[in-house]
């Protein structure tokens, strides 16, 4: 098998030279400082992984990755940036739909691991036709709402009420009971549910069922938490509150569609695989959550 292709974009040549040396043994490495050139390469060649800087004079990395998503959907997208600003990280989720958001300076071994994983996933998804017929569904898709905001629940009901079973969880315990009954297709969640930080629940849900699509609607503007949720929960949308009804409705539709696609093409599941949870407390919480979920399921007989 030929080497997978890795496309690197950064406005600093020295970064490109350095990364090329890190990867040239296992990969066909292409580097450029010009986003335009990167788009040309994506169009003409089979690229497994694209890893881009965020702040570049001609184009933001998140914008380049959005174009990459349209030009070459099977290519895995990674952002490598030294600047953790909120707008960039939101754009990288919503537009770039990045697999990982990595920070400069990076750990060579970690980046190698991420790129290797991404390359393997890309190889598998090249084989999948992106617009396969949705399989005939057996069960109604379920949407789990973890947000005390009534406006959110109302929009979800109005948008998906006719097609989905909708569950509005008032607290972590309730959410767990619902998850024990049956997997969910789409989660719409704030980051705080009353006093509970639900980050660990989102991370656990994605570990339990990679098909689940997560939309975060929140007024919390914490870039480092968002980056964690990208890498460890693969949230697919981050919508800052107040979010307009139209935007939430549109994203709900596209995430439901995404869920159907991923379910019909299990090879695509891996594209949203997650990193292990880094926060020690959250790891414990997630462990307890899974343990209790298992007991509940055994009792219900799922």
């Amino acid at each position, binding site marked *: 098998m030929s080497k997978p292709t890795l496309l690197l974009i950064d406005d*600093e040549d*020295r*970064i490109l*030279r*350095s*990364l090329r*040396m*890190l990867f*040239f*043994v296992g990969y066909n490495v292409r580097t450029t400082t010009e986003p335009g050139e990167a788009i040309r390469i994506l169009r003409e060649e089979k690229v497994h992984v694209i890893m881009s800087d965020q*702040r570049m*004079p001609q184009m933001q990395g998140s914008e380049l990755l959005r174009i990459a998503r349209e030009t070459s959907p099977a290519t895995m997208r990674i952002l*490598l940036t*030294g*600047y953790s600003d909120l707008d960039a990280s939101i754009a990288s989720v919503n537009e770039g739909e990045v697999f990982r958001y990595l*920070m*400069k*300076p*990076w750990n*060579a*071994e970690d980046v190698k691991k991420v790129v290797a994983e991404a390359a393997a996933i890309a190889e598998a998804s090249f084989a999948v036709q992106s617009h396969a017929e949705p399989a005939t569904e057996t069960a109604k898709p379920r949407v789990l709402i973890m947000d005390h905001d009534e406006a959110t629940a109302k929009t979800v009901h109005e948008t998906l009420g006719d097609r989905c079973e909708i569950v509005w969880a008032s607290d972590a315990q309730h959410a767990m009971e619902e998850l024990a009954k049956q997997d969910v297709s789409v989660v719409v969640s704030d980051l705080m549910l009353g006093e509970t930080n639900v980050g660990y629940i989102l991370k656990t849900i994605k570990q339990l069922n990679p098909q689940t699509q997560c939309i975060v609607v929140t007024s919390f503007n914490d870039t480092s938490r968002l980056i964690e949720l990208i890498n460890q929960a693969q949230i697919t949308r981050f919508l800052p509150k107040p979010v307009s009804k139209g935007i939430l409705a549109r994203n709900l539709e596209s995430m439901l569609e995404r869920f159907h696609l991923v379910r019909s093409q299990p090879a695509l599941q891996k594209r949203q695989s997650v990193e292990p949870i880094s926060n020690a407390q959250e790891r414990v919480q997630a462990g307890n959550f899974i343990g209790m979920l298992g007991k509940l399921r055994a009792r219900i007989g799922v």
Partner: protein
Amino acid sequence: MNNLNPPGESIFSLVIPIEALSPDVPLEEVAEQFADPRNARLLSLPVVENGRPIGVISRYQFMNIYLKLYARELYGKRPLRGFINNTPLLVELGQPLAEAAQHVAANMQFPLTEDFIVTRHGRYLGIGFVMDLLKAMEVQMRANTAELEQAYSQLKSSQLALVQSEKMASLGQMVAGVAHEINTPLGYVQNNVAIGQELFAQMQGVLGTYETLIDQLLDGNTNEEQLAAQMQIAAAMRNDASMQEMRGEMNGLMADSLYGIEQISGLVHDLKNFSRMDAAANDLANPNDCIESALNIGRNVLKDKVEVVKDLAQLPEIMCAPSQLNQVFLNLFTNAAQAMETPGKLLIKSWHDSDNIYIGVSDNGKGIPPDIISRIFDPFFTTKPVGEGTGLGLAISHQIIQQHGGSIRVESRPGEGTSFHISLPLSGDAKSNASALAALA
């Protein structure tokens, strides 16, 4: 503040419910009333008709009449009506204390001969002593003053906190910008070292193979097969293309790393220069250096967006607070960058005459609308969304320049751009202000 002393209540506490006289009583009745020891403290007696006060008769006035020879015989039976002062001091119960006191003070006569009459909705309620009213007023004023003082000290400390938060906000922005700039060279330097480490490990392996080979060659006891096998291992390593490439590139990576470390040192140096943590707050400095320092720190905000054109004349050093001038310039530069919706130009000029140093900072951004330009130096005035600016940047800049004995003014044309003109005195003032600057630092 009124809630300390609710209006009606404070006057109510002063009311003395005296039975009023009818205007029809004879004057000798008044004599009896004044002679009554229970009324000893009263300066005057109220006169009321149909429930409404129509006047007063004061002890003073009464005596003027009654002390005359045969006055008792002449006037004793006459009705009181003809002898009263029909413009009494009136205070309505619901009136604020301050207003009542003001009214009484303005209309009372010297020597003080009358008490005031309190009415409720115009009807007689009782009388009050003028001295009590003035005393109550004084107590209230004292309370108000204390309250004002407290409010003032609260305001002062919250203003201090705000100035501090503005300082922290601009510092945070600056540090975030520089951190990003450091992350890039740090990224490749760290990676290059990791690659170097790996290459070094491989080279050690190669060296070991060669050493073994040489040892075997020098050792007479090695047989042909052993030697051939070892040579094969060495040859395979020799032909390992990837290692060849890494060796070829490593020089370049080392040079890059040195360059990166230089970049990082430069940035750290800029930070140190800007904050001047290790230097005296007040020092002789060249304002051009402050401009350069602010440009270095603001580079991250300015690059990709602003073309900086400098026209800096040779300047003499002045006694100043360099870190504060740095702050002023950084504030002006970042404001300019934020005013540009498309990439634009920033022109920085400096020159001097025998009295002053002049600095001009002009941009071709969107300009400042005429209706707000007079307010841009006001504390808390901001055009940025809530939470994004404290509205103190220019106010603090203005204060800093003033404390240097200089001036800062603005000129702007919407759609064309904005210019700030700063002048700083060459000597004298700046020196005498050194102590004031030290207080600010």
